[in-house]
């Protein structure tokens, strides 16, 4: 089977790759590009561990084909921090101990960042429903939601200054 040549942008940088027809964006990120931060939890779009941002929307990369990245702008967990400067949501996850095994964490971080980009002042309910597509089995979500609400407050405060 012949591969497809794709040109795209990932985490702000131009990227070219070859992928097979049936390879999902998740497979492509992990096995072709070596970006293993996005995780496979189910490969059917139910757990959110593979969450990426594609042209401004969060998507499950397991539900997208690698070839569909052509011409798009993709953000993965690897692009959330800037060098060794953590994004506020990453910092707050650490402070609030909002992770235990850490497997769902990349998906949550990307999804939470997308939430706060769109809605800087979510209620707890809005945050819970936005993140309902990200499964966590370790934390019961309590500290995750606290971290997200605290991040929102901090980012609003920083924006006001």
């Amino acid at each position, binding site marked *: *089977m012949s591969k497809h040549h794709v040109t795209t942008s990932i985490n702000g940088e131009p990227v070219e790759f070859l992928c*097979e027809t*049936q390879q999902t964006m998740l*497979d492509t990120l*992990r*096995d072709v590009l*070596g*970006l*293993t*931060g*996005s*995780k*496979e*939890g*189910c*490969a*059917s779009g*139910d*757990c959110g*561990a593979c969450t990426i941002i594609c042209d401004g929307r969060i998507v499950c990369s397991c539900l997208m084909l690698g070839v569909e990245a052509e011409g798009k702008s993709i953000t*993965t*967990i*690897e692009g*959330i*921090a800037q060098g060794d400067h*953590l994004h506020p949501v*990453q910092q707050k*996850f*650490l*402070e*609030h*101990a909002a*992770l*235990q*095994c*850490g*497997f*769902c*964490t*990349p998906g949550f*971080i990307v999804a939470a960042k997308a939430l706060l980009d769109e809605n800087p002042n979510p209620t707890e*309910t809005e*945050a*819970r*429903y936005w*993140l*309902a*597509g*990200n*499964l*966590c*089995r*370790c*934390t*019961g*979500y*309590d*500290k995750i*939601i*606290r971290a997200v609400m605290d991040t929102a407050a901090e980012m609003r405060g920083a924006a006001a200054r």
Partner: protein
Amino acid sequence: MNYVGTDLRVVGTRPVRPDGVDKVTGRAQFGADMVMPGMLWGKVKRSPHAHARIVSIDASKALKLPGVRAVVSAEDFPDILSEEAFVGEGPMNFRDLSRNCMARGKALYEGHAVAAVAAISQAICDEALELIEVKYEVLPYVIDVEAAMADDAPVLHDDLFTANVEPKPTKPSNIAKRVYFNKGNVEAGFKESEVIVEGRYTTEPVHQAYIEPHACLCSYGADGQCTVFSSSQGHFMVRSYVAKLLGIDISNIRATPAEIGGGFGGKTLVYLEPLALALSKKTGRPVKMQMTREEVFRASGPTSGATMEVKLGAKKDGTIVAAKHVLKYQAGAFPGSPIQPGCMCGFAMYDLPNIEVIGYDVVSNRPKVAAYRSPGAPIASFAVECALDDLARKLGIDPIEIREKNGAKTGTKTHYGPTHQNIGYLATLEAAKNSAHWKSPLKPGQGRGIATGFWFNIGGESSAAVHVAEDGTVVAVSGSPDIGGSRASIGMMVAETLQISAEKVRTIVADTASIGFTHVTGGSRVTFATGMAATMAAEKVVDQLKQRAAMIWDITPDAVDWRDGQAFPAGTNVGTFEPLSLAEIALKAARTGGPVTSEVSVNAQGAGPGFGAHICDVEVDKETGQVTIIRYTAVQDVGRAIHPSYVEGQIQGGAAQGIGWALNEEYIYDKDGKMDNPGFLDYRCPVASDLPMIEAILVEVPNPRHPFGARGVGEVPIIPPMAAVGNAIRDAIGLRMTALPMSPPKVRKALDVANGDD
């Protein structure tokens, strides 16, 4: 040394965990994240039948497919004779484990591995699996536990005879064993009871549902030296099991622990590693394997489903005088359900004069059951705590009061034999009674339930090392894979002992060649046992530091004190010396005798049990049957919280799993014995919008056997939720749900029946 009651500066604080940045940036390497040059992919061919004889396996077509490098099946593994060995987290029969990893002769459940293939890509593996021709003789199957116990049930194993029954049976059975515990005389007890409550309860199998599927990368060298990179709850267990299953020397295997994406007991054994190594041996290349989510559900061990009957007899004043519990647990395809601990835990928090518990371990055509967070106890407590709630209602007694009245305390003799000493059950109930939640009013239509739980917690073998680097910073090495933040607690205990700040200690988990043997991460044992080893190693390092300071000052070691991370002369009569920091001593390590380092291995005893009490408020939508958790509080005695955030996290996570078990999670089978819902869409775990904040209240009565007073905490919190939710539903709509999960269709049906609409 015991530090309980001393002035602690690190223990009890909440520093950022050492592996935290890697995890929030996606850098941490989990089981499927590793690659090796020349790596092949491996996949498993699985039985489509719930029960079948394997007549033949023909891999010739698959082997001809370009890109395919090898196929393995049972003939590539040694045929192991039955060997009981208590390793990992439950009685482990290596013959059964081998046959579970790769079927021999019979496929015993849908999803049972019958062959495996290695090829240059995942896509070619998938194609090759289609080309492997397996001829089956389909056999009748059985899944439900009572159906499997029936005389006419299809028998899974011709050589399985029910143990612990007299006279010895001559006919093979699906009942692997009968378990019996007795205290006093229940018949007499029921005769003198003034009130009796009975109930029949059923639970469905549920999966641990860790978000990370099983994955590994294994390499079998031409000289027989192997490397295994996998996510597991115990890389020493992986090494040991793989050695056994493949017939190789343990020291020829180096197992490196990947970061692990959840286990909860389900990763305390192996599935893929033996297959990957066998494929690697045949191909001479490293082989990477990972399960799909569907494979995780179909072919890795969930916990038992069960059927139970419970009967309680009491006096009108609430004193329970008799309790009887019959429990039947599914073991899956091979014997070994958690029936023993289930039988022991249900009544462990009560002081009752007459108790009889009868249990059955029953095989059936589903995946072999694996450990799941306090295995056996949540199921047993569901029945007991619901029955107790019914009893309290019948007597008009408050549910906390009835538990206090009958609660276990020091001197209570359990029905499984030992007498409780120093336990925190009543303290837990007291804290629940005094909680803001318990005191808060309910809104109309809401219901409140409370339930309690008990788990033993274990100690066991653990190794840890402390190394002082030349600049005085410290590396702490743990033998325990870190699932929930134990690197943090271990590092903190080392820092506390050395009296330095937590940031000066880096904690890592070492591979099997680099640290002493360590038992699995499970049984709520790591902070207790590995923490004990790490603390002892740090104490030995302090002794060494004092000796080195003495040498530098040319005085005797007993004239040196260690305080605040520095050496001080013990008194002015010793001489006038400026304090020496860790860095200053470390700089002179070579001259004063060599590297400053210590490794300690223990077989920790004295773990001490844990108790939990959970309060749950619910609202039931009578139209849809949906139950919403409005408020949830989990009280637990934790001994001493080393890192309170991760202790709270264990409690919140366990509670959430219990809520899922209570309300939605179950294996659904079709008419052919195949699982209908092997995915997260229809196997419905709680999501963020299903739950409120979960308040964790920590009761700290120190465990005298641990240097900082810690008790295991991870498992207890999954025990109370099912009954807490069930009792809350009872309170809200006046109906007792006796079958888990209490999902909307079931609640609706119960409402219909109650209204006479059925």
